[in-house]
């Protein structure tokens, strides 16, 4: 017989309120996790693409090595180039083989001849890119100029949209959850007015009286966050095979790196799940805690 036991009894005796509060936290945290993963994934994708060459020039087969060397030195002389990398047909084949090593069917019949040689170029500043691309297109023996900037720009606008929509969604849900916990716990405080008065009269400290209500809110938070973590993990693992065909050729996507710690978002890994669990758990506990504290200060008189 302790106050923690009474708090379990309280939850058991009002199961519908407990379920409502837990489910609301669960839904909020689930949506939060989905948006976090989407926002994190697109940010990591952006970082990945920005680290790649900004301009790729594919040569026609008749372009000889000398004229390519000439072109490279011309481009370098402009002084606007951060890096330039020549990829021969043989190197292109090696890259192709590496990317498709798990799929022997795609390796059959492919020889260095059918792959184009190319140049991967990064400029010191993105403002030089379009001018450089235009100039390169005028060169002879150039098959195609792929401008990475377009891809990056589209992704930037997607990332921003996801962040904004996510922020609005999560804020609304958080506010709704907060009020549901507040009313749920507030109702219980009102129902137990007599008990609270008696406990105060026999000399219980304010903390002794408040503790079960805070535990209750925190328990809802814990249950909601655990449920949302389980669902998000199952969904993540379920979609991993689909995502891996979509993200073919990208070895990994890292969200951030600090000293020895790197949060890699692709492929899914233990550290990613751990981070997700910690974020959801803390959010759940904090919502439950703050909700019950507010309910106490609103409905319990000292």
């Amino acid at each position, binding site marked *: *017989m302790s*106050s923690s036991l009474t708090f379990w009894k309280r939850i058991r005796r009002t199961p519908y309120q407990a379920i409502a509060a837990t489910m609301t936290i669960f839904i909020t945290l689930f949506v939060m996790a989905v948006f976090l993963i989407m926002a994190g994934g697109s940010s990591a994708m952006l970082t990945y693409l920005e680290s790649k060459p900004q301009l790729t020039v594919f040569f026609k087969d008749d372009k000889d090595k000398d004229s390519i060397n000439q072109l490279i030195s011309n481009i370098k002389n402009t002084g606007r180039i951060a890096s330039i990398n020549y990829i021969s047909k043989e190197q292109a084949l090696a890259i192709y083989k590496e990317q498709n090593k798990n799929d022997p069917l795609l390796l059959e019949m492919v020889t260095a001849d059918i792959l184009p040689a190319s140049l991967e170029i990064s400029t010191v500043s993105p403002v030089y890119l379009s001018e450089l691309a235009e100039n390169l297109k005028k060169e002879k023996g150039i098959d195609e100029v792929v401008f990475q900037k377009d891809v990056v720009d589209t992704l930037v606008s997607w990332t921003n949209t996801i962040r904004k929509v996510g922020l609005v969604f999560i804020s609304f849900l958080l506010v709704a959850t907060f009020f549901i916990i507040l009313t749920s716990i507030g109702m219980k405080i009102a129902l137990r007015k007599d008990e609270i008065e008696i406990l105060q009269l026999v000399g219980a400290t304010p903390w002794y009286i408040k503790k079960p209500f805070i535990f209750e809110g925190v328990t809802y938070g814990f249950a909601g966050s655990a449920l949302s973590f389980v669902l998000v993990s199952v969904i993540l693992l379920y979609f991993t095979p689909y995502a891996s065909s979509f993200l073919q050729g990208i070895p990994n996507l890292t969200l951030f790196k600090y000293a020895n710690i790197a949060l890699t978002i692709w492929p899914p890994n233990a550290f990613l799940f751990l981070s997700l669990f910690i974020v959801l758990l803390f959010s759940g506990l904090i919502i439950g805690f703050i909700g019950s504290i507010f309910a106490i200060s609103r409905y319990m008189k000292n």
Partner: protein
Amino acid sequence: MILFNGVEKKYPGEVTGLDSISVRIEDGEFVFLVGPSGAGKTTLLKLLIREIIPTSGTVCIDDWEINKLSSRQLPLLRRKVGFVFQDFKLLMDRTIFENIAVSLEILGKGSSEIKERVYEVMKIVHLEEKSNYFPKQLSFGEQQRVAIGRAIAGSARILLADEPTGNLDPKTSWEILKIINDINKLGTTVLMATHNVDIVNSLKKRVLVIEKGKIVKDTKKSKYAK
């Protein structure tokens, strides 16, 4: 030691609850508070647990001046003073054992110590057979005994009883009185408000007669005639 010094209590609308009360009650005393309804008996008792605050004057228990206690000290005061209410104020969804155990739990006692003390108290109030009953399953007299048990189980050295026999038949009233008297013999100071002249007269204890908020008579080991 309980000390009232020039205590005045006015309720809203200039209704006088108590008027210049000065009285001293020593440790271990048994004092009856008698007087008609509305005389101020309950007001006087409630001042001792600071459920209400005096309009002027001071109320002290030992060296604690009650109206000056901080909100942190208030629970500590209430642990010193067990209160038996006329309407019992039991926790209806808890068993008799749990109701009595509350005063020990709030002190942070361990479960084995709680169990030992609750059974000890249940013997004093003759409820050892009913530990798993809920208050609604008990008679009024038994419920009053639970309330007394709760009041003395913890660290209280003072027992305040507000009309503890008010709703009870004569036989049960005598049982309750005997229990309270036994508790007093164990060293607890008792302050009991009552209407029951027979009870007061039979025990020959100190009697404070209150009328219209004033102490009109303070007699030791005396009888009280209405």
